[in-house]
């Protein structure tokens, strides 16, 4: 039985064309003409359904009426005329309805502007069938970089049906024939892209297409560098990777607009203590997680204190966190992987950003010199110490106020279409010092930390357009660090200076329709000079049983030594796509020789000559990742891999460590699923485990051998599950909930009981919600919960009559835990248009509820009283950002 209803107007069939009024904007003709630019198309906010003319419906007539609507700066329809008539009755009905439409204001160069748009009002009679024979394809088209919806993109089937995305990037194609449907996407700055979908009768398939737009200056180039990413399923080689685009990361509460600080909110990442700035990923030690910027390893992602990252946010394109199971292109780390992709911003002329908040001030300037050259530079310097001195002068010496700076300079040369060469220089520096005087010289304490690094690299990339991609990144680096402390007469210092060089090269090609292969080389050479003096117990190591403020052991030693580490790892990785791409099998193999030398095999004794040491550990690292997407809404994945890591140069001291430490290794295993109940919502659940061995631990022997203060007897294991529920930008809302249930343990030597890892946190929950309704306003909240980290409780104490202090007697490692951490942060921001420039103001309030969290246990001098060092109280921070 058939039932006929009148489906009046079809808002999804609305076509918006940027026919703008003269003097307000220009038509985007793709030729890079100068002039105003439509920065925000109007979106239909209030649709009014037209009355279907009864006579026409009786006659079973359908029609399209093309209207030209004039909108004022507020988005109200001030005029409407028919440009393509469908008859008087249809025209009148369409005009009557369209005049009551309400749109969001169109913005030209960021300014609300009057505009004229074309609107096709379609009158259709819908026939509902008891047994459906057609399907519907609906979805959203977004800019891949900022996830912003794209209006005006036309999706056309091979059969000729088409739809154009509305202001929210939505489209709908109804009445499609079931089966495989070929689709073409076309639009402004988007050359025709092809994809296909498989539809079943009666199905309504929701999809999200993330597309990469051409830069305006590239409009005259061919389409080789265009890219389409179908979000479901994600065609990414890492089976477990959380990517955050820079624009989204900037709005995350608690990060003060620092894009890279979003990492600490991702699943699998434990909370680090305030001020530590450490990344603890899947229960691995912070130093076991590798951080790469454009494939170049950097020593740390955050400045001291964890307030800021070391890369200007404006130069960050995206970041990926891969907590484990990553492919053969990376190695030399037992823990996770953070890869930061930077870029040289596009745009005509000279533009820039000035930012300031309570922590620091920064500037970024970019310029396009011509069609082929563009450059950018950024610098930041902290001024928090000046604030502290001004507001609380006598506090300065006690509070470890971080002083930091960083700078980046880069130039990009577009050699030809799809081929670029970029030269990049990175610099970062940190200084933190603190001193606590005391009338007792044995209780005077001082701390000093310094860290500087620089990187210079060139990045050549070529996209052949036929599936081949090549890149070469040669780089040079310099690291310098110093940690010095004094506790009474016991002075400790450890300094290092490293010169590094490396190259990362890869070539990826499609050797068959179902097979892509990538071969590459990841080489790195480091020559490190180190000097250490003082107590062997300071700095503390993971697993040390000690309490905050406890004096270090007062036995001292001293040594200077050097370490050279060479690693030249070729790798190969294949991407085997089966069953029309529903199954991806990605095997990889990486071969790393891990060559290293130490300048001294044994502690220095008298005037005997130093005898060096040369070692190599040839390691083959198999990797395997698999992904199966049986349905668009469901994906299954699994991965496993073997990873190795050279001993830290600091641990290769003949006096303080062990120059013969071998490489340690870890197995990563994971399996999980991704579910997309709707295109804008993704749910990922992953179970994981890692098993490591050969970890450097303090010798437990009463009489350790010389040059064996550390022994590779440690074992580690971490296992658990993580879940990520992520809402892509939808009607102004975006965010995610990340939860990790994990257990991370260490065994100090074979046969000893397993103990909790120092950073073990059973539950880690981060919930983020951002709201950007438009008009430049943004708001967001972040809720964090984490189990407290384990500590060794003090079960007794005894009086040390020689040192005149009480000494603690510890219980088992993990016999106590820090209090659980709960914190709510909030952020509001407003963008203000100032002529051709924009001013962003934001206010972040950390710990809105003034929750009393604890960061560390502290004891009275006789260890009979135990308290908790409080974390940050409610803490507002105001910032501004001027874009010109």
């Amino acid at each position, binding site marked *: 039985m058939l039932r006929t209803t009148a489906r009046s107007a079809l808002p999804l069939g609305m076509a918006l064309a940027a026919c703008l009024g003269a003097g307000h904007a220009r038509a985007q003709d793709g030729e890079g003409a100068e002039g105003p630019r439509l920065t925000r198309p109007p979106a239909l906010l209030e649709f009014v359904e037209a009355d279907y003319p009864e006579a026409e419906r009786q006659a079973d007539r359908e029609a399209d009426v093309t209207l030209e609507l004039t909108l004022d700066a507020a988005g109200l329809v001030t005029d409407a005329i028919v440009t393509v008539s469908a008859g008087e009755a249809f025209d009148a009905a369409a005009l009557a309805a369209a005049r009551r439409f309400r749109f969001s204001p169109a913005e030209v160069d960021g300014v609300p502007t009057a505009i004229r748009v074309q609107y096709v009002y379609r009158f259709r009679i819908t026939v509902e069938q008891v047994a459906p024979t057609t399907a519907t394809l609906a979805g959203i088209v977004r800019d891949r970089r900022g996830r912003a919806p794209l209006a005006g993109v036309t999706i056309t089937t091979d059969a000729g049906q088409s739809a154009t995305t509305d202001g929210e990037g939505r489209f709908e194609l109804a009445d499609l024939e079931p089966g495989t449907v070929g689709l073409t996407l076309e639009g402004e700055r988007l050359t025709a892209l092809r994809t296909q979908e498989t539809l079943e009768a009666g199905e309504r398939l929701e999809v999200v297409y993330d597309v990469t737009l051409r830069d305006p200056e590239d409009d005259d180039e061919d389409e080789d560098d265009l890219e389409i990413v179908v979000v479901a399923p994600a065609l990414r080689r890492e089976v477990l990777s959380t990517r955050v685009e820079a624009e989204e990361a900037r709005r995350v509460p608690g990060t003060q607009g620092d894009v890279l600080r979003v990492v600490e909110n991702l699943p699998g990442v434990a909370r680090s203590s305030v001020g530590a700035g450490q990344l603890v990923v899947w229960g691995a030690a912070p130093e076991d997680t590798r951080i790469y910027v454009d494939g170049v390893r950097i020593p740390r992602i955050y400045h001291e204190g964890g307030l800021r990252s070391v890369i200007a946010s404006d130069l960050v394109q995206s970041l990926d966190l891969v907590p484990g199971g990553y492919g053969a292109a990376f190695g030399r780390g037992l823990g996770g992987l953070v890869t930061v992709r930077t870029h040289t911003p596009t745009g005509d002329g000279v533009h820039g950003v000035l930012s300031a908040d309570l922590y620091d001030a920064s500037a970024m300037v970019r310029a396009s010199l011509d069609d082929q050259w563009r450059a950018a530079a950024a610098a930041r310097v902290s001024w928090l110490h000046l604030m502290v001195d001004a507001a609380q002068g006598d506090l300065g010496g006690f509070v470890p106020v971080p002083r930091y700076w960083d700078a980046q300079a880069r130039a990009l040369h577009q050699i030809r279409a799809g081929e670029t060469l970029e030269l990049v220089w990175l610099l970062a520096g940190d200084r933190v010092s603190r001193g606590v005087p005391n009338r007792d010289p044995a209780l005077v304490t001082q701390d000093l930390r310094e860290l500087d690094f620089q990187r210079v690299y060139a990045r050549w990339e070529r996209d052949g357009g036929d599936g081949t991609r090549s890149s070469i990144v040669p780089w040079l680096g310099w690291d310098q660090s110093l940690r010095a402390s004094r506790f009474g007469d016991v002075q400790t210092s450890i300094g290092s200076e490293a010169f590094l060089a490396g190259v990362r090269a890869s070539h990826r090609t499609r050797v068959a329709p179902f097979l892509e292969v990538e071969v590459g080389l990841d080489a790195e050479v480091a020559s490190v000079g180190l000097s250490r003096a003082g107590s062997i117990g300071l700095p503390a190591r993971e697993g040390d049983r000690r309490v905050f403020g406890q004096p270090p052991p007062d036995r001292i030693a001293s040594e200077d030594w050097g370490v050279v580490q060479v690693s030249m790892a070729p790798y190969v990785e294949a991407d085997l796509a089966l069953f029309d791409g529903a199954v991806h099998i990605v095997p990889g193999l990486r071969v790393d020789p891990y060559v290293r030398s130490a300048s001294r095999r044994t502690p220095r004794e008298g005037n005997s000559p130093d005898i060096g040491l040369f070692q190599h550990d040839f390691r083959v690292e198999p990797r395997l990742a698999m992904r199966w997407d049986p349905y668009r809404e469901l994906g299954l994945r699994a991965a496993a891999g073997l990873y190795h890591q050279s001993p830290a140069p600091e641990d290769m001291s003949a006096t303080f460590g062990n120059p013969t430490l071998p490489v340690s290794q870890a197995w990563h295993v994971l399996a999980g699923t991704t579910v997309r109940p709707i295109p804008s919502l993704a749910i990922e659940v992953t179970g994981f485990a890692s098993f490591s061995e050969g970890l450097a631990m303090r*010798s437990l022997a009463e009489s350790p051998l010389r040059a064996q203060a550390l022994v590779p007897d440690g074992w580690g294991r971490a296992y658990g599950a993580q879940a990520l529920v992520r809402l892509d930008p939808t009607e102004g809302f975006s965010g995610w909930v990340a939860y990790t249930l994990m257990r991370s343990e260490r065994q100090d030597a074979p046969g000893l009981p397993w103990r909790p890892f120092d950073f073990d946190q059973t539950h880690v929950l981060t919930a983020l919600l951002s709201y950007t309704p438009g008009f430049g306003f943004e708001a967001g909240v972040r809720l964090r919960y984490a189990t407290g980290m384990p500590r060794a409780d003090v079960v007794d104490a005894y*009086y040390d009559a020689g040192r005149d202090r009480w000494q603690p007697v510890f219980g088992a490692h993990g016999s106590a835990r820090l209090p659980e951490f709960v914190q709510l942060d909030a952020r509001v921001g407003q963008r203000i248009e100032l002529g051709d420039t924009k001013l962003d103001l934001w206010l972040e309030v950390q710990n809105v509820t003034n929750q009393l969290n604890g960061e560390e246990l502290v004891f009275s001098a006789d260890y009979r009283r135990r*308290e908790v060092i409080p974390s940050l109280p409610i803490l507002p921070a105001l910032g501004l950002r001027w874009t010109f």
Partner: protein
Amino acid sequence: MDVLRHLRVVVLGLGALACVPDVEIDESRLGAPRLLAVRAEPPEVAPGQVQRYVGLFAGADGVLDAAPLDWAYCLARKPLAELGPVSGACLEVEGDAIAPIGVGLAVEGALPRESCRLFGPEPPPTVPGEPIGRPVDPDVTGGYTQPLRLLVPDGAEIRPSLFEVRIACGLFGATQAESVAYTQRYRRNTAPGIEALELVHQDGRVVTLEPGATTSAPRGEQVTLRARWPACPDADACGDGLCGIDETRASCPDDCSDPAAVGCAGAERFLRFDLGTRALVADRESVRLAWYASDGSFEAARTGVSGDEALTLSENGLTLPEAPTELVVIVVLRDERGGATWREARLRVE
């Protein structure tokens, strides 16, 4: 002004991180009898030599003349993974690592002959056929110590305490010439002494607190206690009666011929092998003072003078109680190389 207020909030927030909760205890208050210090006489001997160990066991009524302190040497080496001062085995009542000395407030014992192998620069005992083990690292004065375990009555309980006595050992890691020079020039630690304990009234009057005597002081007054110790010369001078580190029996027989001669009882200069520069350097001992009182309150429980300072005194404010009472004051002076001495005084607060 708003900006400054905002700044203050932020700074105080950051300062909260540096704010350790109040877990202060009054370490200077004398209450139930407890062990306050241990002195070795002489403070530094070679393995096998006899030493006398004296405990300072005192409470609110003053220094006790007798106490059942149970003394023992500990023979257990400390693993590098143990960040405390000694092995946990050293705190046991008995065991293989415990070598009893005696019971009492003062005992005599011969330093274990293997002290320099167990706790000094000499290679530790090894199983035949195994490589040489790692010697113990020196302390900041370049010295090594033998741990002593004490069992001390604490109310109805017996609790362990620790004392480490300095051993006269050689050097590790030095050349033969440096070792010889060190042996020739190093002067063992001399027991420190308190030259005078003075009470400075608010009006500037200075009263010397004599041992065994009771001195009157007005209640509620904020007085200053001052401990003085002998001044030690900054440079050696032949004929001053002190055999300094740059004097030898040949260069100054008057000062260095008598092996039983006593050195300076203040902050002595001593020779140290600097591990960084691999050279013998001269340092001066720092001096620390622990202040105890049965009533009233000190400004600081501990004061001291670092080795960089030439002071031979240390002062501490004492607020006398408001109520009339008799006050016991004990001052313990420790030098950096493990020497200790103490002085008791009594104040009648009127």
